């Protein structure tokens, strides 16, 4: 039958000057699924908006209150400091791991193994109580030397460095061996090869997981509330322990985390674009 239709169509075609219109397949299933999902989403949002227990008015009251903003500020600088120090320590660790020196390789491997094995919560408590092992450090009382904020920076940095080391190492391994050989053949020094040739190319593979780490760290800093560091989460906890408005204040913290994460994601897009220069996909 089809050959018959084809013949007829072919016979009819030459007379028609206008091109034949293409009618796409009707995708009823796609529409049905989309409607169902939208309805469910609408119901969920509706219940969020109209559940009085959320007390959105209270959320509004505290969203920009001084104590919450102070907590937010601590969360932000703690994240920045921990990420900066984490990568500052992680980059040489990655270099050690890739070095020809077996001792450096072993030390780097051991560091990553230890600090990735240890839960960050355990580590914070450990540093917080280090005075039990060393009551004095260089003649100074350990409790005076290691306050809660110092412990938070120390513990989070050591933890972060282990992950940063692996992220940087992965980036370096992604750079083609021929790039290093070409730089060697041109007589470029070890430092120059590293700074100018390897790292900029490694950055393309480093940025996405580093962005992940940054956002993870931002939220992960909330763990320091256990040692009474007044970050964003601890600040809202202080309020709700007094007022019992638990849900609205948790929403305050959540909304701030969402806002900052969104800003960071936009930033990551531009950083990626910068390091992608010269690659085919930006042409």
């Amino acid at each position, binding site marked *: 039958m089809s050959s018959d239709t084809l013949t007829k169509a072919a016979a009819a075609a030459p007379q028609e000057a206008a091109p034949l219109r293409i009618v796409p397949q009707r995708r009823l299933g796609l529409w049905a699924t989309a409607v169902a999902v939208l309805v469910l989403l609408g119901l969920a949002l509706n219940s969020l908006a109209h559940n009085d227990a959320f007390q959105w008015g209270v959320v509004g009251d505290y969203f920009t209150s001084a104590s919450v903003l102070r907590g937010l500020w601590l969360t932000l600088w703690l994240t920045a400091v921990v990420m900066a120090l984490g990568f500052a320590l992680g980059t040489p660790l990655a270099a050690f791991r890739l070095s020809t020196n077996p001792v450096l390789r072993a030390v780097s491997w051991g560091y990553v193994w230890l600090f990735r094995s240890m839960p960050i919560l355990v580590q914070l408590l450990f540093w917080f109580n280090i005075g039990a092992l060393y009551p004095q450090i260089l003649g100074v009382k350990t409790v005076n030397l290691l306050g809660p904020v110092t412990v938070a920076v120390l513990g989070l940095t050591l933890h972060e460095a282990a992950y940063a080391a692996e992220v940087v190492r992965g980036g370096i391994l992604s750079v*083609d061996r*021929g*790039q290093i*050989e*070409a*730089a*060697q*053949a*041109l*007589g*470029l*020094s*070890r430092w*120059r090869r590293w700074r*100018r*040739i390897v790292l*900029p*190319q490694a950055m393309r593979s480093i940025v996405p997981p580093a962005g992940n780490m940054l956002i993870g760290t931002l939220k992960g800093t909330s763990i320091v509330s256990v040692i009474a560091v007044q970050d964003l989460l601890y600040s809202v906890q202080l309020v709700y322990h007094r007022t019992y408005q638990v849900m609205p204040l948790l929403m305050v913290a959540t909304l701030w985390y969402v806002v900052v994460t969104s800003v960071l994601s936009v930033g990551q897009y531009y950083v990626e674009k910068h*390091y992608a*220069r*010269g*690659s*085919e996909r930006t*042409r």
Partner: protein
Amino acid sequence: MNAPDEATGETAVSAAAAGTNQTGAPAMVDIKSVRKSFGPLEVLKGIDLQVRAGEVTVVIGPSGSGKSTLLRTINHLEKVDQGRISVDGSFVGYRRSGDKLYELPEREILGQRTRIGFVFQNFNLFPHLTVLENIVEAPVHALKRPREDAVAAARRLLDRVGLADKADAYPKQLSGGQQQRVAIARALALEPKLLLFDEPTSALDPELVGEVLDVIKDLAHRGTTMIVVTHEIGFAREVADTVVFMDDGRIVEQGAPGDVLERPAHERTRAFLAKVL
């Protein structure tokens, strides 16, 4: 050109290191009984080769014959297990003291490498740098030339390889043939005394091979000393002063292209040529 500036302390070593050929002129490259293994696999089984200044030596042979490894030992990208290699009178990667060769610190090896240009099969241009930045990187940072001079020289070199308008392009925006011409310009920017080409056209589409070979031929006619590992027999016939045929880690025969390519003395050379021609 720079010969009179060379440290005089080296001359005693230089005379000993540089082999002399029949005409008495010192060889630019002198390779003596070089052996090299990768694990249990011996890829160079005692290589002796001399290249005179201003000559073009083309190395041919089946894949796995050790020709690329030999080329890479000349600028110390691969370390030899035995034997020695001198370029322009000094050992590459080593310092001789008595009957021992001491490996040099990396800084000095890097200095030696700036006098030997190397062109890779896969170009190995730096993808995150523009064409111009690729070329000026080594003159500015390895030779400490003033940036303006290096840029001016780079533009002249780009003009010479026919890519004057591509200075600000990124390598990925160029065809393979154009990339390899940039790589040649990058090697030339160091004004090397010796140029090494490792299968410079093997990664190219057939229609792009010609433009790269033309640049290399032009260099040959200007009297640049070079060693070219290639599968392009026609190029060897046209440009080479000496053709070297390698097989299984050894030099089977070498001589003028008219002899090696037209009247090979060895059965293995004949078999190889029958396959590639």
